[in-house]
């Protein structure tokens, strides 16, 4: 009787806590990929998910990560926030394990022990800036939650806008969880910028969208037409949280929307809905988690071992047909080539894809190719979808 090789894979997501909705969709994406891999090769190596939930508590990440690593696990798919990733990277490096990080983030990091399948800043914010400047103008209000994601994205926005002759008359940071925006909205309405760049997260973002729409309507302003809100973190599960009255007309930059028209995405959506009928709906980070677990499983199968060195060498040779299109890993930075897109939310809690890149775009986590010091590169040119 043949010996069936089993590989235990750590899945570290805060499925409870303040950002639990997105993290649950990420866990679902990773679980779905492992399930599909197990079904694809009967009799071959199988993958056993070991799920851990830090509950959004930063202290729990290190403890749970250590437990997973000490139990012999070499690969962990997980983390959503940068603070949680920074917390566990030293442990991952110490054990020479691999973290498969499946979320868009602000960049300025590379580690030989991390594979990044979410979007780098050149794949989300740069195409967004290009689109908003061309379509709406260069007078921008930046509004964000008071933490690294917002600080860094607003810095990139501010520097690029100023370099292109625009202006940022207001830049504000709000405590995470703050939900009263009446004063700030008053300021925005008196400034009347060409658009608002939103880097608020969670409940703050949902409250802002609702209150902004209400106050604009009360003042006779067509919010989506006159002061649109652009984000590079807004996803489908969050549209549900915004609610039906203010859900439509928001611009989002992402490498994946559930409305992307590929056969792989149709299959992904169907399998996801079948496996998780109670939701939450898919998100770009759920897709990135699905891709991360897929790449991991395929690499382990390919080398016949979960040896970190071998898997890391092998994964950069793989090309997978992901729901968003072809995805592969850049050997220099271990970040993924992904396909940037611009979407606009509609009343069906989805995004209409307006623009997309013609081919996967090389990751540039340090924005080396967008240097105001030497030359200003153009972001990836997107083609019109509708």
């Amino acid at each position, binding site marked *: 009787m043949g010996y069936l090789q089993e590989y235990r894979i750590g899945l570290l997501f805060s499925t409870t806590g303040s950002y639990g909705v997105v993290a649950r969709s990420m866990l679902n994406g990773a679980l779905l990929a492992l399930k599909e891999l197990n079904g694809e090769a009967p009799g071959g190596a199988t993958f056993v998910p070991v799920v851990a939930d830090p509950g959004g508590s930063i202290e729990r990440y290190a403890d749970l990560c250590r437990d997973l690593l000490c139990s012999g696990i070499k690969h962990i798919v997980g983390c959503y926030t940068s603070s949680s990733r920074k917390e566990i990277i030293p442990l991952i490096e110490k054990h020479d394990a691999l973290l498969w990080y499946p979320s868009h983030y602000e960049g300025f990091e*590379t*580690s*030989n022990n991390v594979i990044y399948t979410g979007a780098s800043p050149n794949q989300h914010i740069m195409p967004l800036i290009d689109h908003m400047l061309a379509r709406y103008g260069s007078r921008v209000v930046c509004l964000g939650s008071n933490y690294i994601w917002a600080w860094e994205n607003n810095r990139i926005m501010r520097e690029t806008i100023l370099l292109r002759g625009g202006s940022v008359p207001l830049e504000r940071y709000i405590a995470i969880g703050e939900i009263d925006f009446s004063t700030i909205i008053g300021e925005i309405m008196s400034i009347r910028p060409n658009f608002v760049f939103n880097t608020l997260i969670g409940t703050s973002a949902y409250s802002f969208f609702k209150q902004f729409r209400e106050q604009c309507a009360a003042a006779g302003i067509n919010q989506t037409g006159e002061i649109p809100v652009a984000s590079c973190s807004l996803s489908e599960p969050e549209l549900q949280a915004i609610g039906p009255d203010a859900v439509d007309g928001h611009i989002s930059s992402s490498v994946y929307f559930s409305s992307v028209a590929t056969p792989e995405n149709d299959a992904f959506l169907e399998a996801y809905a079948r496996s998780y009928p109670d939701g939450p709906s898919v998100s770009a980070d759920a897709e990135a988690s699905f891709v991360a677990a897929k790449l991991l499983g395929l690499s382990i199968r390919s080398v016949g071992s979960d040896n970190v060195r071998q898997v890391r060498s092998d994964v950069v040779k793989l090309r997978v047909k992901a729901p968003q299109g072809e995805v592969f890993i850049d050997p*220099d*930075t271990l970040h993924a080539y992904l396909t940037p897109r611009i979407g606009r939310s509609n009343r069906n809690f989805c995004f209409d894809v307006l623009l997309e890149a013609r081919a996967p775009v090389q990751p540039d986590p*340090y924005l*080396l190719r967008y*240097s105001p*010091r*030497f030359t200003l590169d153009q972001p990836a040119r997107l083609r019109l979808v509708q």
Partner: protein
Amino acid sequence: MTPPRMLQNFNGNRALMIAVPGATAVPLCGMLAKLGLSAEPIEGKAEVLGALASQVNHERDVLIVDGDADVPGVGPFATPSRLAMAPVIALVGVETPGRLRVLMGFGATAFIRKPVQQSGVYSALFLGINGYRHRRFVDELIAAQEQRRRGRRALVKAILKLMGQGLDDEAAYELLRKAAMRSRLSVEAYSEALLDDANGPSRNGLGDISAPLKIRF
């Protein structure tokens, strides 16, 4: 003088790696390449370092020196009273005051702890290069102020001379200031030139000592 712009993108810079051993150089070069820098090994010998000064461009180059290596003297690097020829980042193994003092004497404005980890290299470049640029700016500012300070004597003399021609001190200073601006000189440099000219054979047509100071209006 305008303070230097803070640099954050080091794409295209060159790292000159002085006496950095292979085990440290390999991970460091890997990370530098990710940040867009090219790296060149440099031997830690006196004659090599002596020849380096003429090839280094402080806008482009950053010197990375191994703090545990026996690099002779301060060579082309800074003495504590002089600015290094380019930004210096030191690799620190032994954290003793003696070694750290030598590295600061080299002009190090940032340290990278050994063994080199990928994280921390960007911060060290950021601090090292921007710290150097700031120090260079401050040094130039001080040198310019020193030169002006030395010129105050000439300014006082020129004011006194103009006062001898019937102006009060305010009017004399104002006259000199405006004339200096027209000549695109500092008021001190203008006063020096004016007095030089007045003291000897006319070189620039500003007048001579026996005649009243002549300033073009």
